């Protein structure tokens, strides 16, 4: 089973990298960019086929390591 975990900074947390990318896109003339926030994507392959078990393992992974929940949020999606 394949899963994707997306980790992003919480909205209250300053994202200087996103700001710099936003500035670069604007200076490249890319039209209509209002704002950019940068995050991380983890593509994870799981053994087994039980979606509930997979979800619970991934939540464990996010809480223990993949996200720092003081400053980051995470979302899990199963393919």
């Amino acid at each position, binding site marked *: 089973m394949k899963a994707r975990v997306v980790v992003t900074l919480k909205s209250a947390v*300053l994202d200087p990298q996103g700001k710099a990318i936003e500035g670069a896109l604007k200076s490249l003339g890319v039209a209509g960019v209002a704002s950019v926030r940068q995050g991380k994507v983890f593509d994870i392959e799981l053994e087994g086929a039980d979606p509930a078990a997979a979800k619970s393992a991934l939540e464990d992974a996010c809480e223990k390591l993949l996200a720092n929940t*003081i400053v980051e949020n995470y979302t899990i999606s199963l393919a």
Partner: protein
Amino acid sequence: MTSPFRAAVVLFPGSNRERDAARALKLATGHDPAIVWHDDRALPEGTDLVVLPGGFSYGDYLRCGAIAARAHIMDAVREHAARGGLVLGICNGFQILCEAGLLPGALLRNAGQRFICRRQSLRVETNATRFAAHYAVGDVIDVAIAHGEGNYFAESQTLDELEGAGRVAFRYCDAQGEVGGAANPNGSLRDIAGVYSENFNVLGLMPHPENFVDALVGGTDGRAMFASLAAA
């Protein structure tokens, strides 16, 4: 104290200031600290102080300090801290302590995006601790900073608690001791450069006092921290 002060410096893959920390400790205590490998399971018997040195543990992969905070030796460091043992995390060591949950908050990318390596003034906010007894409150000390992710962040409620309990150890300031504005190099909330744990036995700070213990390199303002510890 009946036995000599025993310090241990933890070496992670990618640590690079462990020798600076060891040198500062030797200067203060008269003997070399133990060097402990990240994959060890225990600290040397009788360890009084654990130092997590600066550097780029695990190449700063995932988040600064995130992987190191989950290394085997950190279980022993957690137990040591829970017993009231002293722990000092400098720079990457501070990031590791936050990631390990031994200190509140997180260190984010510097607000100005750049890695900053230069001299920096700090104001001593409290000296009623075993780390800072040889400083006076309000002292302005001149040390070094060298980091890309030193922007201290915590929820405002956490910041209020830290300030209320006198747990802010040092604030970034200018040479006159004034905080705020351009004196804050990295965007840290409330100009915080270092914080203590609830029981004041764990200190994390971004600046490098261990690099300023010898007049040969331009300053000795870091000495008092190691002297305070050695006398603790």
